[in-house]
């Protein structure tokens, strides 16, 4: 079975994110970059699906050399091959999807597994867009995946509960937080990863890109809240909520 796992390179979710002085990006100093946590879960799920059997997991990044450490880490986790798609275009869902679609055409995988959203843009569009582009079924916000033969059954997190859907391969799955705990690569695997196949292709080879119709005009910090007050006891709290905040009556 061949599985493609696109991975995004994002800021570590523990880093403090502040807008820079010019309001066009964030302060980058001291901010560690990692594999987008949801994509890391996707790599792990792909590994669990193959479970050491026959198959190939291809991890893909779009951008440039800066994502190499993340691709290597995915290889160290157990992925078989890495593909780095070089592009100068600003990475938005409308740009990413055609490139991935073209790669899928080229590679003909059975399954695409990816994170439900990347924690920088929080758009959550690519998996669905890709599925539509390929006319493939999709299962989003997966917390459980089972594959039997060609049939995939996925438990999805939905409003107010969970839902189970099924489809026949090929299809697209987007991962949610509780699907699995990604493994930490072991030292011997990190060493082996250095020798795994790593292809670099340019966006032209995949049909080129056009700019996204969505543009970020500016960035700003979120609105500040007023400073709060400490109250002495329950009675004081009730008084505040009733008389000052007027949320109780």
């Amino acid at each position, binding site marked *: 079975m061949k599985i493609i796992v696109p991975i995004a390179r994002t800021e570590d979710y523990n880093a403090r994110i502040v807008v820079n002085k010019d309001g066009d990006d964030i302060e980058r100093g001291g901010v560690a970059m990692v594999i987008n946590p949801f994509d890391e879960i996707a790599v792990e799920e792909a590994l669990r699906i193959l479970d050491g059997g026959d198959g190939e997991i291809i991890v893909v990044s779009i951008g440039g050399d800066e994502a190499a450490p993340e691709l290597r880490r995915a290889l160290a986790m157990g992925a078989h091959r890495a593909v780095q798609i070089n592009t100068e275009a600003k990475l938005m869902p409308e740009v990413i999807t055609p490139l991935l679609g073209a790669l899928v055409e080229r590679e003909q995988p059975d399954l695409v597994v990816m994170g439900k959203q990347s924690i920088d843009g929080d758009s959550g569009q690519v998996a669905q867009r890709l599925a*539509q582009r390929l006319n493939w079924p999709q299962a989003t*916000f997966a917390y459980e995946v089972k594959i039997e033969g060609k*049939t995939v059954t996925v438990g999805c997190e939905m409003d107010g*509960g969970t839902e189970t859907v*099924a489809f026949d391969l090929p299809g697209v799955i987007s991962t949610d937080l509780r699907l699995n705990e990604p493994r930490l690569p072991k030292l011997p695997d990190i060493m082996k990863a250095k020798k795994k196949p790593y292809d670099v292709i340019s966006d032209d080879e995949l*049909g080129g890109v056009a700019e996204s119709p969505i543009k970020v*005009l500016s960035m700003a910090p*979120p609105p500040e809240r007023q400073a709060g007050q*400490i109250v002495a006891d329950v009675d004081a709290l009730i008084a505040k909520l009733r008389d000052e905040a007027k949320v109780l009556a």
Partner: protein
Amino acid sequence: MNIGLVIGIVAVVLVLGFVLTRKEQDEPSAAPTPEPQPEPAATQSEKPTLVMSPDEAQQAANESMASTEPTVTPEEQTETPAPSEAEAEVETAAEPDAEATAEPAAEEPQSVAVDAEDPSEAETQLAPVEGLNTLDNPEGGNAVLCLLDVNGPDLSVPNRSTLSAAQQIAQARSAELHVCCLGADTSSASQAAVEGVSAVHSITHAHLGDGVAESFFAAAMTALGSVAADVIVGPSSSAGKGYLPRLAEQLGCGMVTEILSVESGDTFTRALWAGSVIATVQGTGRLVVSVRATGFEPAVTQAAEPQEIPFEAPVTKTRFVGRETTESARPDLSEASVVVSGGRGTKGDFAPIEQLADALGAAMGASRAACDAGWVPNDLQVGQTGKVVAPSLYIAAGLSGAIQHIAGMKGSKTIVAINKDEEAPIFGVADYGLVADLFEVCPELADKVGEQGLKPTA
């Protein structure tokens, strides 16, 4: 002396014997070697089979095989598919072999998408589907179509907030506002009018109760067949998140996810990095917009006479298998005006949280730690990776306030923090803080609120 010699020789023999037998004990003889692990393949046969049984498949096929080609042109939109065609489809499909039924269904394309979906013709820019737009402008006319996924007689708060957003966009663009309710039960469409709306539509179909994105996508395309909108607005519900991107891809246009505000007809704000940054974005051309409901006041709705748009639901490649809802007498977390959340400080005992929630008629929420520990179901998680809520009153008890949690609730109007640790970060974002033990304070608060007959104002 002779005795001594005899003893000596006997002793040496004993020693030799001792040493030689000891040596044999030390040699590993039949030391049990650990058995190699059984082949992983052996265990797979014990996994529960997940393929539908032929009977189930047939049932599903029967249910979904009521449709043929969905209508394409507006002139045909009022026609229902010829019953005979439908029956013919059912017969051909009613075969016990699950795989065989699935194949023809899969191959029968969602015809609205047929042209652009041929893989060999993939282009980087998807052109809108031919025949869809009946107005002169292939980008759609100057109209805003608000798609709501509904269920039940009442229009939910998130949907009404979405209507607000759609209203604002339509006003900013001086465009017509159309509303279309999609669902298995669209009775709430009769309350889905707002000031300035041009028309309210509904698409009712059993499949739309299953939440499968492809069904909603097809319904949305059908709606667009009636309303050639250039801005499509939907809520950021799980259904919306599932199908709106598909719609955007099909239309070949941009999508702005989870807007927080409408700045102008094509400019919106949205949150990046889980709300650490508010970005102002602008979209050109046709747009799909999803709305973060907590960013908008729920619209004041009026009665409406919805027009039903006929809809031939396709057999989707993704099959609905089942659903588990967390039943609760409490209000839904994303809708409630009061939320009481518990965290690690409850040490697993959510009784005080529940008591306070009941006293206030509030929804219950939890931190990631509490969900990960299994103390409460996952869908109660409030936070960056859980639900983003913005109730009138948010009470965080025994919750330290990790950044990821705060990201999910800082839009709340009034925040109250209850924590034994006065240094907890939650106090930095709270409007009112009480440094106390939640096991004492929550019941006390619940009791006093009850005694004094206080109720939330929102």
